[in-house]
């Protein structure tokens, strides 16, 4: 009975403190990829209230890539948590998401839309983990 109830409401995960040394993985749509494979600053944006990432403790880059149905449309980059925390007004919070069964889910709060400096700093921080073809090299 208890286990059936637990299944119905989904797993309950505690939010944990993410160490500075750990990586956050993030999907990047191919339309944010330049012809030389670099990532445009526009990729670093909030979806809703925060920028959505996955903590490496509970996710692989491949899992992050394939959380959406069209995994081939996305590159995956990594961001060092300490680097994210060094960007002005950015806050890293582990926010596991039972609805999508994603214990790795981590929100990065802090304005990006009206802060071009923040997006430039993100674009200097990332490392490309899984590349994808830019729009100009795709066959439609």
């Amino acid at each position, binding site marked *: 009975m208890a286990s059936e109830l637990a299944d119905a409401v989904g797993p309950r995960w505690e939010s944990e403190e993410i160490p500075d040394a750990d990586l956050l993985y993030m999907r990047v749509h191919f*339309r*944010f990829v330049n012809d030389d494979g670099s990532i445009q600053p*526009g990729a670093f944006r909030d979806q809703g209230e925060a920028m959505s990432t996955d903590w490496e403790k509970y996710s692989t880059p491949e899992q992050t890539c394939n959380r959406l149905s069209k995994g081939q449309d996305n590159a995956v980059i990594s961001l060092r948590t300490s680097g994210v925390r060094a960007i002005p007004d950015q806050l890293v919070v582990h926010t596991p998401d039972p609805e999508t069964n994603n214990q790795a889910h981590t929100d990065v709060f802090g304005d990006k839309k009206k802060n071009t400096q923040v997006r430039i700093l993100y674009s200097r921080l990332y490392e490309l983990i899984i590349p994808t073809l830019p729009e100009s090299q795709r066959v439609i």
Partner: protein
Amino acid sequence: MPRIEPLKREPAARVPSFTPPALSSGQESKVLYDAFNALRPRWLEMNTLPKSLERLETAIVKSIRILEWKDDWDGEGSPAYAEETWQRAALFLVQNALRLWRTCGIAVDVPRIGPGPDGSIDIHWKSERRELLINIPADSRELADYYGDGRSVQVQMMKGMLDTQANNLWLLNWLMQ
């Protein structure tokens, strides 16, 4: 049906995307003609760019592709881009590139014109010397946000908001130093 005169351009080669639509008889042709004429003043402004700014013109023409993207173009809920936002970005670039060319004889580097957050458009320059990002917001009443700095510590960081309709020669001048 009135005849559309070919656009005059000197001395650079024509960009195919700016060619007037071929007219035939019928209502569809009239709609095309009206649409083209509505945009004509802006096409003409772009079509008078000097040859040294040809690459900039090509980049602007290429960037119009983002207007074809529908809502949720990234599978994560991003909205479509408005033609008004793209035109604001294009005019900002054309007007200030021309000012820089005419005033200082400098052809501005070619930026990347791409998707910004929430229907806004990013104009991004990144060179060995300096980096500059200007964000044209989706709301035409809002000022554009910009940030620039350089690889050298001697380069002063630039940050603030700007009116895209004003003379922003100083910003492109800073970029090209």
